[in-house]
């Protein structure tokens, strides 16, 4: 059942992961491995635990059992190697910060509490802005960007942070077609640069177009591997049908 992604030295390794809210497991006994340089789509019905999985990899939720290893090392709490990108509605777009200021936030960890930005830090910010085509908008307040540009600005911040793993929770929700295409090509750029992207997504039809790898989830892991194989009719029936793989929560 658990078809593991093939690898030699996996960047992200999740072993026997269970995460609960008030003793009720939202995901249980997940085991999978993911390599760098892939864009991984996370699929599953509502309440399947997609956000829970992403949050626990980001260090926002404590696992009940199991472990999460980054590059072979146990993840202690949270790490700067992982960039968690907020859902759009969680962001205060009126915040007094420009695009450039937001990308600079990604460098705070490197700069320290009171240190000033070195030439290196400024270069990292400039590169991040250029990589995501944000240079012309760098002086704008973040609300003055289109939805796709806003997503790219957060990617740029994660890039400036020098993260290896990018966690995106439903980034395509509420984007129009043009913005979604721009975001998708930005994600492809990151994959090309050897980053690992984990993206939760609800539209199965776009799965193969956007992601080379997919994880299908419904409380437990249904499948993990090449997108075309994971999103097979049988697997989808397992994930979205209620008869077999409905998980603990439906037993009562």
């Amino acid at each position: 059942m658990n078809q593991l992604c093939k690898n030699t030295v996996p960047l992200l390794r999740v072993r026997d992961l269970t995460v609960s809210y008030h003793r009720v497991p939202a995901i249980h006994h997940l085991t999978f491995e993911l390599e760098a340089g892939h864009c991984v789509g996370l699929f599953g019905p509502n309440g399947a635990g997609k956000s829970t999985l992403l949050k626990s990899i980001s260090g926002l939720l404590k696992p009940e059992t199991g472990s999460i290893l980054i590059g072979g090392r146990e993840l202690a709490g949270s790490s700067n190697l992982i960039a968690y990108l907020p859902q759009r509605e969680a962001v205060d777009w009126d915040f007094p910060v420009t695009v450039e200021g937001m990308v600079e936030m990604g460098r705070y960890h490197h700069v320290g509490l009171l240190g000033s930005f070195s030439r290196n830090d400024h270069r990292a910010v400039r590169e991040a802005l250029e990589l995501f085509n944000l240079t012309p908008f760098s002086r704008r307040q973040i609300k003055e960007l289109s939805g796709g540009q806003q997503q790219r600005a957060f990617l740029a911040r994660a890039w400036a942070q020098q993260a290896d793993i990018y966690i995106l929770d439903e980034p395509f929700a509420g984007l129009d077609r043009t913005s979604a295409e721009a975001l998708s090509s930005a994600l492809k750029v990151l994959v090309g640069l050897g980053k690992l992207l984990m993206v939760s997504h609800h539209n199965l039809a776009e799965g193969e177009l956007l992601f080379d790898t997919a994880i299908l989830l419904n409380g437990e892991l249904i499948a993990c591997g090449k997108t075309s194989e994971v999103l097979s009719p049988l697997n989808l029936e397992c994930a979205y049908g209620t008869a077999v793989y409905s998980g603990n929560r439906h037993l009562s």
Partner: protein
Amino acid sequence: MTAASILSDLITPFGYSFMQRALLSCALIGFTNGFLGTFIVLKRQALLADALSHSLLPGLAIAAMIVGLSPGGLLLGGLLAAMLVALGGQLMARNSRLKDETAVASLYIIAFALGIVLIRFSKVKIDLTHFLFGNILGVGNGDLWIAYSAAFLTLSGLVLFHRPLLLVLFDSAVARASGIRVGWLETGLLTLTVLGLVASLQAVGVLLSLGLMILPAATAYLLTDSFTRMLWGGAFLGMFSAVGGLFLSFYANIPSGPCIVLLLGILLAGAYMFSPRYGIVSRLLLGRHFHEGSLQRWKGHEEHHHQVPEVDGENR
């Protein structure tokens, strides 16, 4: 009236040492609380700060019962009472159905009522109105020391931790994911808020202390898109308004607290109306097509009917 006589009229009050102390205290507290205000406004905790300001009262009353009117005792009492309400509210919200704002509101209003009752039992005779509305001309050296230490602690703490705080304010989940101790920073911010409220008691009292904290930052927020400018702008607005309000109150012979808050209110109203970017009047004057880029593209689109305007380029 000659220029010299106006000048001497302006300077005269500063011959009195109580006026000098009042002025110094106003400037310090105005600056500090204006600075702190940016964090409270961006954290959307203005109403929590209001609740805390009311919950100071029972602490002050108990302190007055035990040690009399010493500034140190009052500071400690107020600090404890407000922290109890803040933490108690969180505890109640976590352990029951009540949401946190209901829990905090219930606790603070109970605390406030308790404070009014307790003041009757105070050892020394206290005028309730001094607690509620302040008595700036009664600022003693002890109060000044509190103002000094509050200013020092608040400003150094906020400057030292401004980067992690900024990350927490902007998005606490992302901040936590990148390894920042969000809980500690939030508790620290809460403690500084209570400290700022207690420090401004003499100047504006329990009921108006919120004004020095929220109004300058709210005004600055309407005027700028830069966090740094909002921070320092709020601080200087707070300082100048506190000092200006004190002058006004002296010459117009009205209480200093309302005078300071009203002056800040006028500034906020001004920014609300006329802020170049976010003022309602300014926005009306700008017309319907706010963004020049999209206007130009739209005109180009009308000329070449077949060319579809680019969507992701410049639109907002």
